């Protein structure tokens, strides 16, 4: 059998693309609307936006439909779309104290200023299948909406913004408060314009983590939590809310709010360290587009673990973490193994056959020598 370099296959490829699109349409169910995906599968949409590093709910929903539910492919599409668009500018740096909060919890303190707000979460569900959803229809939804609003005390208001929980620790001098002088940055790094170099500045590291793949980040953060590293975190605060996207009005120069962007933010308190002989809690920080709490917490843990001065495990190695958590790059590299490697493999085969011939010749020579 011969192994040779090939070209061609265009028609087969085109048919394969058509077959992929056909698989989505061959069933008898009505077509899935992009608005349905955006509204009802919003956590998947959030994840795609975060990993694609582009906040565009409509397009993320479209990408999920086109990718038949594959979030890697959908994030890839979003990032590819991003490359076709001109960058019009940069927002004014937003402080998350201004976030319009819809969920906010702390596992460090019971009583926090403003209170613990559970918001919308699946944390306390039983993870048992809800077979009633099989009969989901407008009548059922109306009844549910009517029920949920019936006993709602409309006079109870939650403040729109909350002070940070960690400010309590900071006020008491229990938390590292600022970055060391050598870690401060004059300009914000942008890894979409300049490739990562190591050690990466903090802004580059946070940007890379913010667009990382949730599963990959969780894996590495979990390894650290389990002992392959030394970060045993306490969740200082987890908040989900809407951050104003503010720029300077190009004509008046005044602050101009374009709209609000949903984000998740996590601050984890980790082991005590002290540069000046005074032990303090250290902090890990995570923030990503949409509601993706596992990712934000994992990001915070990895932010902290990669600042370990003498890394001993993968999750503490900044280069290892940042190079292996970009889902689109990782997925692309994994997928490329499906492309023809006929010449590579032919070379491997030749080498293997030659090695076997040499081994057989050596065996024969040993036998001959032994007989003599």
């Amino acid at each position, binding site marked *: 059998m011969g192994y040779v370099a090939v070209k061609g296959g265009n028609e087969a490829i085109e048919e394969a693309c058509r077959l992929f699109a056909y698989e989505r349409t061959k069933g008898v169910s009505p077509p899935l609307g992009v608005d349905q995906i955006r509204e009802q599968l919003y956590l998947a949409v959030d994840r795609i936006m975060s990993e694609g590093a*582009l906040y*565009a709910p409509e397009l993320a929903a479209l990408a999920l439909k086109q990718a038949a539910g594959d979030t890697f492919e959908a994030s890839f599409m979003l990032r590819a779309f991003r490359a076709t668009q001109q*960058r019009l500018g940069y927002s004014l740096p937003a402080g998350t104290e201004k976030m319009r909060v819809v969920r906010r919890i702390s596992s460090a303190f019971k009583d926090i200023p403003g209170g613990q*707000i559970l918001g*919308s979460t699946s944390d306390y569900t039983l993870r048992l299948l809800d077979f009633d959803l099989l009969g989901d229809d407008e009548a059922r939804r109306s009844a549910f909406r009517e029920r949920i609003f019936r006993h709602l005390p409309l006079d109870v208001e939650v403040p729109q913004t909350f002070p940070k929980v960690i400010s309590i620790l900071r006020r008491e001098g229990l938390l590292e408060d600022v970055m060391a002088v050598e870690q401060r940055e004059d300009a*914000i*790094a942008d890894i979409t314009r300049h490739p990562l170099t190591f050690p990466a500045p903090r802004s580059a590291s946070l940007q890379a983590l913010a667009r990382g793949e949730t599963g990959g980040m969780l894996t590495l953060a979990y390894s650290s939590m389990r002992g392959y590293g030394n970060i045993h975190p306490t969740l200082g605060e987890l908040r989900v809310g809407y951050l104003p996207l503010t720029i300077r009005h190009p004509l008046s120069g005044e602050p101009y709010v374009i709209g609000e962007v949903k984000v998740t933010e996590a601050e984890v308190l980790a082991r005590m360290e002290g540069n000046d002989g005074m032990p303090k809690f250290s902090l890990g920080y995570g923030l990503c*587009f949409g509601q993706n709490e596992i990712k934000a917490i994992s990001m915070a843990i990895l932010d902290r673990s990669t600042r370990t001065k003498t890394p001993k495990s993968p999750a503490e190695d900044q280069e290892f973490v940042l190079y292996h958590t970009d889902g689109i790059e990782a997925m692309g590299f994994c997928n490329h193994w499906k492309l023809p490697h006929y010449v590579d493999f032919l070379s491997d085969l030749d080498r293997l056959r030659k090695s076997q011939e040499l081994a057989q010749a050596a065996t024969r020579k040993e036998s001959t020598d032994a007989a003599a």
Partner: protein
Amino acid sequence: MNGTDLTALIDTMDEERVELLLQLFADVELTISTPPRTGLMMLAVHDSFATAFYPGEILVTEARVIYDGCEGFGMVLGEAPRRALARAAADAVFRYSDATQVQKSVRACLLEEAAMQKTRQLENGALVAATKVNFDLMPGA
């Protein structure tokens, strides 16, 4: 609410109301100086150490219109050319030096929108408020 705060409401207005708003400019001479175009705005955020970083970009649409020599700027989230034009037109009439009838009409429309959005926010806020935790101490604690 100042003009910029009012025009910010256009970003989340229902599409039908955006069209109603645009109709207020039907008898006004507006020149589109920059037609709506989509692009990206990079979001900058301060982390807990006051280090600014970029979590990602946001798809926006921008447009500019001129009203009687006064330029207005509109930028909204997503791909929404009509919405961007509405915001640019509203910005232009608010930036115009004299109070005009169209300015009054646009202000009234946006104040009505502000009231509607406030009601929606109160409803959603009440749903969130209902999830506020009231801890009870364990016996003996």
